[in-house]
């Protein structure tokens, strides 16, 4: 029997730390599948797309279609609505970024950056505040002060380019990736 030396103590400390660290790794390895199972499965993630025919939409009219389980706005703007959206100084907007999935993240929120063809506005119909569906404003049924959309849940107001102008929403309505298949048909997603 010999008294424990400093060497023994160091070795024991090393074993404590090493087994503790390995235990931590094991716990993390077991925890991850239990956390990740809640994320969307590959089936849900598989990029679904939808084609929208445009020929039945009149000037000044907007329709809502379902895309990835959420509303998608397609609006055929009047010349006045386009002019109104273009007259806005981008620097004065609460969110100066385009929020257009087809453009770089830092693209400015000009009307041109929010549309592909000026007449057609395609947006995700999800308020950037807490996810409600905003109500469209038309000349006969005015919603809010900016002619675009009003979210009734918490009072966010969007203009005729879907840009946030007033209320608690932090960002402009998102422009999803979409392309014109022909003059009267788009594919979203």
């Amino acid at each position, binding site marked *: 029997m010999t008294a424990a030396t400093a060497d023994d103590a160091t070795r024991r400390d090393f074993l404590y730390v090493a087994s503790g660290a390995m235990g931590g790794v094991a716990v993390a390895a077991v925890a991850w599948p239990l956390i990740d199972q*809640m994320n969307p499965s590959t089936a*849900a993630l598989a990029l679904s797309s939808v084609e929208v025919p445009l020929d039945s939409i009149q000037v000044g009219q907007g329709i809502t279609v*379902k895309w990835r*389980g*959420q509303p998608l706005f397609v609006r055929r703007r009047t010349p006045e609505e386009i002019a109104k959206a273009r007259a806005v100084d981008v620097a004065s907007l609460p969110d100066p970024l385009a929020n257009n999935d087809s453009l770089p993240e830092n693209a400015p929120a000009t009307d041109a950056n929010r549309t592909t063809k000026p007449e057609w506005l395609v947006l995700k119909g999800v308020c950037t*505040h807490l996810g409600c569906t905003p109500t469209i404003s038309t000349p006969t049924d005015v919603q809010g002060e900016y002619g675009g959309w009003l979210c*009734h849940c918490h009072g966010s107001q969007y203009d005729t380019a879907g840009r946030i102008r007033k209320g608690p929403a*932090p960002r402009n309505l998102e422009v999803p990736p979409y392309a014109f298949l022909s003059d009267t048909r788009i594919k979203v997603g």
Partner: protein
Amino acid sequence: MSGPSTYNPKSGIEKWLDTRLPLPRLLHDTMNTFPTPKNLNFWYVFGGILTFCLAVQIVTGIVLAMHYKPDAALAFGSVEKIMREVNYGWLIRYVHANGASMFFLAVYIHMFRGLYYGSYKAPRELIWIIGVLIYLLMTATAFFGYVLPWGQMSFWGATVITNFFSAIPLVGTHISTWLWGDFAVGDATLNRFFSLHYLLPFVIAAVVGLHIWALHVPGNNNPLGIDVKSPQDTVPFHPYYTIKDGFYLVLFVIFFSLFVFYAPEFFGNADNAIEANPLVTPPEIVPEWYLLPFYAILRSIPNKLLGVIALGAAILVLAFIPWLDTSRVRSCRFRPTMKWLFWFFVVDCLILGYCGSQPVDAVLAGIPLVLVARFGTAYYFGFFILLMPLVGLFETPKPLPASISQPVLGE
């Protein structure tokens, strides 16, 4: 649960158990001989009522789960089936749905009582904090439960609340997606919310056990807010408070029954009779009445992140009350200033609740309600963060009686 035991096992089986698993001793000490201040008033009966509410929710909930289908395509129909076809399904579901409202009514009275009599002050800080935790678990459970019938308000309520997390910078949207299991609230969300709604009540039951355990170490506070000085200040829990709690429990059940049998949809929202539609948001999204004050606080702040922070802070601030209150006197009976500020606070919560129930652009007598809600929010936080510490320092409390017995016996 703690302290010296007065249990004396008599029968053979009691003696046998007492040396192996002293369950009879535990029950005897906590529910029979437990010394309780003899001056507890009406406002102290809600602890027992709340235990009853939890039991009712668990029993009716387990039965409902035998008939409910947590599937976005089937959920709404299965609830209709419970209401129309399952034997007594209407009764069980109405008891469960109104039971949630009764549970919150009782918990709010219980919390305001604790606030008025200073029941959160040393040595009872942990009872209060565990209580705040129970309240948080209750709101989570109620939220998950409200989603299950899969009506319009279920769906959009779930959308708004889960979007709170998207306010968190950087990881926010990932957290929302993780909660949904999809790009939006959908079948995956409903399925997991059902799982959690079934789990949490049992977690609550366990934490209630801790709440009662923590209560039995220092014993009850009382309306005078002074410590028990001698055995003359207390009576045994049984039969004095079992009878008193039982009497008021009967009255509470009568009140509860009035809603279940005569106004079962009183707390309901007509929009929830429409099946969930992800493309149409109802004109007004209104949470259940018990969350309206917090909803008003959220809406009163015109910034997404700050609004969500304020909402969370409004509940979390409760956990810090034991240290925010600097007064050495517990009960508001002897606190002439705090008594008034407390009642203003109660009225403030009611005003905030009213603001939360109204449309976002509503105007009352020429005043926009959002302005009223802003003042209400300012008082809500001001009460805890400014008034509680300051009033405790500057207020001159009234003289305290020498003992619980003294004001009754007159020396």
